[in-house]
């Protein structure tokens, strides 16, 4: 590479290089970034080169090792040009196929193609990959196209033309103005306007000045600077040279953290090449401009990312910040004016000079021009480096580019800006990413780290994690940070260990605000951000850890025996009941379940299994089929157990009355009986079971099953009085006068809600309401079903109504839901079963009018919706799309849009306090109403919920009533308990030995049988299946 002594020499070199390049010549561009190397790209590279040479193809096929492409998850990655075919996960043994099949014969190898996890589609070309499609790659434009160790590659693609333009036609002031106009802001975190910083440094008096490139990317989770330095070092060098020129003949330093050896190595090569070419050193390109760069390696201190600490480090001192003013622009390295810029900031400079400030500024927002690189990691399908225009929303990045949350889990929060940043919950996902907007919600842009968290991430634990990091990285110079970080960490650790105290959160906030206000440098000033933002948005998690010793994510070891048990609202000892099944001890299994849940057979059919979502086995392959296992054991019990269960002994004198013999009421009565109380349940209907008996269809929950469980409860000593409603004639007050020491009201939520849609006329033939429709079907009443049925709603009732309509003879059943599929509050199984049976779904469609003629339903007018901004709960509000009205012909319309508790049975003058929403007001911990001795819970208080939540409410109220009767005023605590059971089976497969054993599939009856009647659809596990499935359990509880 000869030394270039003038701009025209550079130009002719570029032209020569360009001429030499044949764009039609195949080139295999293999990613050689740190990520792909970790996956073994080096042997692949060697094999590619060997094979190409061996086959005599060296002048026909190029093999190039490029820098990081940014899509590290699937490495080793390669792109075959000019075809554009993208392969991932390439191994040595694939090399021959890559060369002979794809490069030579242009045949694609499907197994090497990228599969989009969201759609399941295979993608051939790099440009079609959703991850890349929505990005705007300016800084990363060349990362996959050049060999970072070849200055010629860089020059051929236009490299150093910006420097040429600067040196030959622009004054330093011109350059500064251009950067200002481009609205380039510091990409390292603080977002200070770069042009201004250069101007301050330029104006500072003194001839000796320094330009430092800050490559100390210390934020855990951020690796964009690494990729730029590894993949396109010359881009940074060129930016530095232009910056040095603007500032005034500055001398250059690059400070790179020691943890990036490849970046250091590639920089050294690049600098040497630039020097040899005359692009660094004295009289660059024959001008008067002299500039050279020294590399300094960091020594492992996060705080050295801070300007003044970094300067101290270069000076050979302990990396401690100092007060400002004076700012580095006036007095920095060795007291001289110093400008420090982040790698990414400098990497944008050449493009701005080449394409102009106006073009660059237009890419971003009013306040910030250009693009920003984010490292998108954590619980997201596509992890990697994402370059997008500033102002894009977080939702677009996480869901459109990132492909959403894996394993069907729910998004919880995204951490923006690493340990200096804050977490952003679902409700703010539509916020545009910009320096100012993020600050409003307590987050920061930071270096660009975006760590996505799902429902299994504990926000308190994450905060403790960040506090641990900043505490250990605190330099110790100033008291607020040195002492404050330690204190915050201590409090957070205590909370995660179940030793949180009332007042801890307030204490944390006070300390956090003090540290923020008084710390000497950016580390201290921003380390309270995660604390303050998690308290702001996830206060309930802190409270649950402190008051109830509960970790909703199931991850704080000290509070959670096993995630499944902790996720169960009623705390069933899941691992042990599964262990019993694996040992063939089915009766013991059921008895263990019944210590908390008296409805194993019912829940084994219809529970929405929050335990399975948390099952750790799910991280390996698929979660345990906990629900189906429960059903197996319970069914076995009811089919095989000889003998009647004994009634619980009555040990206490007090009698308790329960209003409503549904799952909540019966659970309360059962647990009270277990605790030795005499209990009576008053049921208005001739059958017990509440919603289970009168709503849930027979094909999901046969009546016989319900009756078995109710009989069991009665046999254990609970008295049920049927046909005995509590109403104006026989009130709650009357019950207490009758001598019941306490009353629990679990009357359910059985009033159908009307939507209030025009045309919703009572008595219209063909118009039904979900609950009463299902009740009529379940109780055997004649229900007229037309041919074309339309169901409105998206919950369990809507599913049940739709599938029942099919079984009653409807030729077509269409469900209209005003939100999207992802937001439907039904389990995947229920939805899939409905689809299998032929129910058609129309999402984002809302009814506007029920059309009728002659008092008969003839159709439903609907309008399409689109999802707008998120409401405070994080759900996006559907908004009608004007002009998109349609008419769906129908002769039957079933409204299943929600239920509400029916308080009408309580007399108007009842002392019981109601809430604004016409529900009863109860204490959330004890479920006590304002009247001493009267408690209420379940659907009746909280609106329609899942059956296990109803059962848990019954258990909670039983504990509360017991405390009340013993005059114990302490809080009710639902703690997980673990029995010590001797080792039952062969040592359970630890994670280390567990092979990929797929989850057993629950049997179902044939489709013909399904839709022709109400026979139970699921047939459950065979004994063989149950034993096999039970053995898949990892026994997480045994680690404690």
């Amino acid at each position, binding site marked *: 590479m000869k030394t270039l002594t003038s701009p025209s020499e550079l130009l002719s070199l570029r032209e020569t290089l360009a001429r030499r390049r044949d764009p039609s010549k195949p080139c295999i561009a293999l990613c050689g970034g*740190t*990520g792909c*190397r*970790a*996956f073994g790209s080096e042997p692949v590279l060697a094999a590619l080169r060997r094979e190409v040479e061996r086959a005599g193809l060296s002048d026909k096929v190029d093999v190039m090792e490029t820098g990081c492409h940014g*899509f*590290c*998850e699937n*490495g080793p990655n390669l792109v075959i040009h000019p075809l554009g075919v993208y392969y991932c996960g390439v191994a040595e043994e694939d090399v021959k196929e890559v060369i002979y099949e794809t490069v030579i014969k242009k045949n694609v190898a499907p197994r090497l193609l990228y599969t989009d996890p969201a759609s399941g589609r295979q993608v051939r070309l790099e440009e079609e990959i959703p991850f890349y499609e929505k990005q705007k790659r300016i800084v990363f434009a060349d990362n996959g196209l050049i060999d970072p160790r070849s200055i010629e590659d860089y020059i051929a693609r236009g490299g150093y033309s910006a420097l040429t333009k600067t040196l030959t036609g622009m004054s330093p002031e011109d350059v500064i103005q251009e950067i200002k106009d481009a609205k380039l802001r510091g990409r390292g975190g603080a977002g200070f306007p770069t042009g201004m910083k250069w101007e301050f440094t330029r104006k500072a008096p003194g001839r000796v000045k320094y330009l430092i490139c800050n490559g100390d*990317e*210390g*934020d*855990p*989770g*951020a*690796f964009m600077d*690494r990729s730029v330095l590894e993949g396109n070092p010359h881009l940074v060098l060129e930016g530095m040279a232009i910056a040095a020129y603007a500032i005034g003949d500055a001398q250059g330093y690059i400070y790179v953290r*020691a*943890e*990036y*050896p490849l970046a250091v190595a590639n920089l050294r090569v690049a600098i040497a090449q630039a020097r040899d070419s005359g692009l660094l050193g004295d009289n660059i390109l024959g001008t008067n401009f002299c500039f050279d760069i020294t590399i*300094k*390696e*960091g*020594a*492992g*201190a*996060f705080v050295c990312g801070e300007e003044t600490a970094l300067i101290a*480090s*270069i*000076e*050979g*001192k*302990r*990396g*401690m910040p100092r007060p400002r003013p004076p700012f580095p622009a006036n007095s920095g390295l060795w007291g001289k004016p110093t400008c420090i810029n982040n790698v990414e900031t400098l990497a944008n400079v050449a493009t701005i000079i080449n394409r102009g400030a106006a073009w660059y500024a237009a890419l971003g927002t009013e306040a910030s021009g250009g693009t920003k690189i984010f*490292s998108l*990691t*954590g*619980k997201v399908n596509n*992890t*990697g480096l994402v370059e997008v225009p500033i102002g894009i929303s977080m939702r677009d990045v996480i869901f459109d580019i990132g492909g959403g949350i894996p394993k069907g889990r729910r998004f919880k929060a995204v*951490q923006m800006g*690493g*340990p200096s940043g804050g977490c952003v919950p679902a409700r703010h996902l539509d916020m545009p990413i910009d320096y100012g907007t993020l600050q409003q919600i307590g987050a920061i842009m930071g270096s660009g*780290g975006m*760590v996505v*968290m799902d429902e299994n*991430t504990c926000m308190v634990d*994450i905060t403790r*994690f*960040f506090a641990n*990091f900043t505490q250990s*990285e605190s*330099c110790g110079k100033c008291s607020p940070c040195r002492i404050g970080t330690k204190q915050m960490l201590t409090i957070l650790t205590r909370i995660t260990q179940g030793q949180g105290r009332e007042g801890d959160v307030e204490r944390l906030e006070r300390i956090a605000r003090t540290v923020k206000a008084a710390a000497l440098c950016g580390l201290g000033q921003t380390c309270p951000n995660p604390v303050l933002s998690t308290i702001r948005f996830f206060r309930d998690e802190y409270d649950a850890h402190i008051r109830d010793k509960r970790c909703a994510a199931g991850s704080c070891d000290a509070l959670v025996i096993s995630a499944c048990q902790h996720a169960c609202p009623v705390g069933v000892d899941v691992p042990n009941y599964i262990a019993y099944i694996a040992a063939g001890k089915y009766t013991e299994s059921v008895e263990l379940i019944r210590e908390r849940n008296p409805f194993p057979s019912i829940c084994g059919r219809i529970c929405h299994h929050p335990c399975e979502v948390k099952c750790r086995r799910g*991280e390996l392959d698929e979660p345990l089929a906990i629900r189906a296992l429960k059903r197996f054991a319970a069914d076995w019990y009811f089919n095989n157990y000889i003998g009647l269960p004994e009634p619980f002994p009555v040990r206490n004198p007090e009698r308790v009355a329960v209003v409503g013999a549904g799952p909540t009421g019966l659970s309360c009565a059962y647990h009270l009986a277990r605790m030795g109380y005499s209990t009576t349940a008053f049921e208005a209907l001739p059958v017990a079971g509440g919603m289970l008996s009168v709503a849930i269809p027979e094909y999901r929950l046969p009546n016989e099953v319900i009756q078995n469980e109710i009989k069991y409860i009665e046999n254990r000593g609970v008295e049920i009085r049927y046909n005995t409603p509590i109403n104006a004639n026989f009130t709650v007050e009357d019950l207490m006068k009758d001598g019941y020491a306490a009353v629990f009201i679990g009357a359910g939520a059985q009033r159908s809600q009307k939507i209030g849609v025009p045309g919703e006329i009572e008595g219209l033939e063909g118009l039904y309401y979900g609950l009463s429709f299902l009740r009529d079907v379940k109780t055997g009443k004649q229900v007229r079903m037309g041919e074309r049925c339309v169901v409105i709603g998206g919950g369990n009732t809507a599913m049940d109504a739709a599938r029942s309509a099919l079984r009653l003879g409807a030729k077509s059943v269409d469900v209209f839901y005003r939100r999207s599929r992802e937001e439907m509050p039904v389990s995947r199984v229920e939805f899939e079963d409905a689809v299998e049976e032929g129910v058609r779904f129309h999402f984002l469609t809302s009814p506007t009018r029920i059309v009728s003629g002659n008092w008969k339903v003839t159709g439903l007018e609907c309008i399409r919706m689109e999802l707008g901004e998120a409401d405070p709960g994080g759900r996006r509000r559907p908004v009608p799309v004007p002009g998109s009205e349609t008419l769906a012909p129908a002769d039957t319309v079933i409204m299943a849009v929600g239920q509400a508790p029916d308080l009408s049975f309580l007399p108007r003058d009842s002392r019981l306090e109601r809430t604004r929403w016409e529900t009863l007001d109860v204490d959330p911990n004890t479920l006590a109403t304002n009247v001493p001795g009267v408690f209420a819970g379940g659907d009746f208080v909280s609106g329609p919920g899942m059956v296990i939540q109803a059962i848990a409410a019954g258990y909670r109220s039983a504990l509360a009533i017991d405390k009340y009767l013993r005059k114990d005023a302490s809080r009710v605590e639902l703690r997980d308990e673990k029995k010590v059971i001797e080792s039952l089976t062969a040592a359970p497969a*630890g*994670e*280390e030995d567990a092979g990929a054993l797929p989850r057993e599939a629950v049997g179902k009856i044939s489709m013909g049988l399904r839709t022709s009647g109400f026979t139970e659809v699921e047939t459950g596990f065979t004994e063989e299946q149950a034993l096999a499935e039970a053995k898949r359990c990892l026994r997480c509880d045994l680690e404690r």
Partner: protein
Amino acid sequence: MPVQTAPEAPGISQDALRELIAGFPRDQSSLIPLLQQVQEQCGYIPRDAVDSVAGALGLFPSQVFGVITFYSQFYTAPRGRNVVRVCRGTACHVRGGKKILQLIQNELGIQDGETTPDFRFSLETVACLGACALSPVMVVNHSYYGKMNPKKIAAVLSQYASR
């Protein structure tokens, strides 16, 4: 079975040290790069090297110690031949890095910051290795291992059993 001799603590000879020092300007700004090279040679900063370095750069030994103890890269005790670094960055944490660290500690029998008695392995944690898409990550010497899971740990470590 071969007799297990007590491993010698590695160090740096005075000649080698002088040669290293000769390559740097004799002032404070050389301190960190010089220490980095000393550690590159023998795996840590031996006590007697501190005095030579201090003298050569015109510093007090206390100043040199101040720098050594501030930066986590520097060690004052000999380390194992194979350095295992487990990443404790955010992305690795969210994907189960804590468990990986626990299992490695069990496998090696040492805690974070310690060295096995036979000087085969040293274990340390790093704040972030910048390979976040591969989380959880561990590095042994200069080799990166991504997407770690409990099964892979034994396999990775056994590659270094005889080094």
